[in-house]
């Protein structure tokens, strides 16, 4: 053992770390790589050890994997040691596409008042318990938000108007208290007799809408959770005075309480790191864009013309997005029951897309492509969350593109501290089909606002009961929107829109083919999106 080894051990010992033989040789290797002189060894190893201990998964015994990661990140920083040059961060190293099936399952525990990780392996079939707990989790998460909300929390001051203030009760407390007013939180469902009920964790009560003028803002669907205020009657029904969507909580608030919980399975970051990253994104990556395309119908020739146009346009202006997200459907008509010829054509379309993109080496090499399947695409399952596109269709895309991702629907993108949720579903029509109540005389603009508000308030992408639109119960947490994402893309065949609600930017890029080629460009630095149009009539030029 030479003096250098001894020094390395000593430095790590200072940080209460021990080295195995592999780790020791790794450190030696690193030192050799950067040709450290004997005088520098101590400071270099110390830097390494400091960074190592900042990692979340740092063990007492130094693990080679973590050490390698630390070294890589130090190298990145080291490249910019020149003070004149501004620190360059590679966005790709902070960009993760997260599949719904890889997210850890966190279950809300009432006893402990926090999230608990489910350690049993998750299966597609789910278990009896997970079917129950999936729905209960939806309720409990909304309830803990409501209880924290200032408008619903019990008054802290003992005063005369305390009687007037209604606190959140459970259906269990209704019995024998006819004539009193109650505020309940529960799920809207139909009972066996076909009457509308409110169901919470303890029981259910029939609702009587005769006294209600109009409901609060939002779309009330069967299976959504609503706050209901009303008078309990002798007949055992609740005469509703007011009904509203539960309030939702900003991302910051939720993060300040559950910041240490790693909802995405990509390692949790602390709030302190988050705020540092936020500044960096705003300063250094001000012109970084992500493109979102929806309904990329590959069986229409004009789609290829449009894509070509988009790429040409980017090259002309020397403006390149970091990521291009293409959402399904990748066919304009359903082929799930089609003949083998249809399926062959479907695959050929993907292949020609791969050929088209590979004609633009700047794109095929450096830009990340994400392909999110739509309702009509061929995937393994048809229940949410949906698996990714079948690998046999995407083989050529995979081989031609350097960064191609094929995640599930919905999927999430973690970009620095931001979380972007992408969901391709004809959500507007599905919600409207299952509606039980909405304000009268709503216009299209209101509907868009209501849709966004409902989805975020419900903290769930699919606020419908299991008999209307089932989900895989073990993976229901992948549809959860808590804490609120930074941005939510609700790709829909419905008209395009963008709304910012409680700090969450929600938008629909709309179908790519239409009167013009349309898509959306999302700017993480401003948390805002822009609508982009390319004219159809320029087709002749290309």
């Amino acid at each position: 053992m030479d003096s250098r080894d001894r020094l390395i051990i000593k430095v790590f010992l200072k940080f209460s770390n021990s080295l195995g033989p592999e780790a020791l040789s790794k450190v030696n290797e690193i030192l050799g790589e950067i040709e450290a002189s004997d005088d520098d060894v101590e400071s270099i190893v110390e830097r390494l050890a400091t960074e190592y201990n900042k990692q979340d998964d740092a063990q007492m015994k130094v693990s080679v994997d973590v050490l390698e990661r630390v070294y890589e990140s130090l190298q990145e920083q080291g490249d910019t040691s020149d003070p004149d040059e501004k620190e360059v961060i590679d966005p790709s190293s902070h960009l993760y596409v997260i599949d719904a099936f890889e997210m850890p399952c966190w279950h809300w525990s009432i006893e402990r008042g926090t999230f608990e990780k489910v350690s049993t392996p998750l299966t597609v079939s789910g278990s009896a318990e997970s079917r129950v707990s999936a729905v209960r989790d939806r309720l409990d998460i909304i309830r803990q938000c409501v209880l924290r909300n200032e408008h619903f929390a019990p008054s802290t001051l003992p005063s005369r108007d305390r009687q007037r203030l209604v606190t959140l009760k459970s259906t269990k407390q209704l019995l024998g208290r006819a004539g009193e007013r109650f505020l309940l939180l529960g799920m809207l469902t139909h009972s066996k007799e076909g009457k509308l009920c409110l169901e919470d964790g303890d029981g259910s009560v029939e609702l009587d809408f005769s006294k209600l003028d109009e409901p609060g803002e939002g779309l009330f669907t069967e299976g959504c959770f609503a706050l209901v205020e009303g008078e309990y009657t002798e007949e055992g029904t609740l005469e509703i005075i007011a009904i509203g969507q539960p309030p939702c909580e900003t991302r910051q608030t939720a993060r300040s309480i559950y910041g240490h919980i790693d909802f995405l399975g990509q390692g949790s970051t602390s709030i302190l790191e988050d705020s540092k990253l936020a500044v960096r994104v705003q300063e250094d990556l001000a012109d970084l864009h992500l493109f979102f395309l929806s309904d990329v119908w590959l069986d229409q020739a004009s789609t290829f013309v449009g894509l070509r146009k988009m790429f040409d346009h980017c090259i002309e202006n020397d403006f390149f997005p970091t990521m291009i997200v293409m959402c399904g459907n990748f066919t304009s008509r359903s082929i799930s029951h089609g003949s083998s010829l249809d399926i062959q054509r479907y695959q050929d379309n993907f292949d020609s897309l791969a050929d088209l993109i590979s004609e633009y080496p700047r794109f095929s090499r450096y830009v990340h492509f994400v392909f999110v399947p739509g309702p009509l695409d061929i995937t393994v399952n048809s229940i949410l969350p949906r698996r990714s596109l079948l690998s046999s269709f995407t083989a050529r895309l995979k081989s031609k593109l350097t960064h191609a991702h094929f995640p599930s629907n919905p999927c999430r993108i973690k970009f620095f501290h931001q979380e972007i949720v992408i969901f391709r579903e004809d959500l507007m029509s599905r919600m409207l089909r299952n509606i039980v109540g909405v304000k009268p005389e709503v216009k299209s603009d209101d509907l868009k606002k209501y849709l966004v508000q409902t989805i975020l308030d419900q903290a769930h992408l699919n606020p419908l009961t299991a008999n209307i639109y089932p989900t895989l119960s073990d993976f229901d947490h992948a549809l959860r929107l808590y804490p609120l994402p930074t941005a939510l893309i609700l790709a829909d065949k419905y008209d395009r829109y963008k709304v910012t609600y409680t700090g969450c930017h929600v938008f629909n890029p709309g179908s790519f083919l239409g009167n013009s080629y349309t898509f959306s460009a999302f700017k993480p630095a401003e948390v805002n999106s822009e609508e982009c149009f390319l004219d159809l009539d320029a087709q002749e030029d290309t």
Partner: protein
Amino acid sequence: MSVETRQYGDLSTQLVLESRRSTATDTLLKYNDSLVRSIIREQRDLERAAAPLLLQAAAAAEDDEDNAQPPPPALMILQTAILRNKRCLLAYHHHRTARLRDMYWTVGGALPHLLSDADTRSRLSPHEADYLRQYHDSVMEYRADLGTSELDIMAGIEKPVNDLNVLVKVKKECGVIETELGTIDFRKGQRFMVRRADIEHLIVQGYLEELG
């Protein structure tokens, strides 16, 4: 938490009681986020209640400056409640940070060891985890000034060491470890006579047990 209550400051009494319980049982309890939030809300409510009284008192003082009236008693009560709540909040958080620092020093400053324990982690609020990290950074910075070899400030001071070597028994498997004097393969149940400085941190973190 009972809703049927109460007088001003009852909530903060609960909070302080929790600190007492934590000391008595020598455990770190889960950070009571909801209670802290309701106390802060109570503070705001109290302040809102005090604001009109303050205006009233100021107006009364302006009206006749000669014989100055004492502030109304209700205001005094509100202020006392506000100050008491504030004190309780500070006490609670001070108690927690002190406890966290104690935990930090008992494991010999091995922060990853502390934070990787899921049970402890679930009891910390995210801000407390950040606090621990920054505290750790400060300690490390201080330690760097002392050099590598002179002094180990992480070592316990209650039991002064009187021997350079120590007989240890392996309690938790930790595999092959390189020390300054050579490589040791620690397997569960084995005993070793080793140099104390090399494995001090392993004892503190519970991998090894000191014998006799």
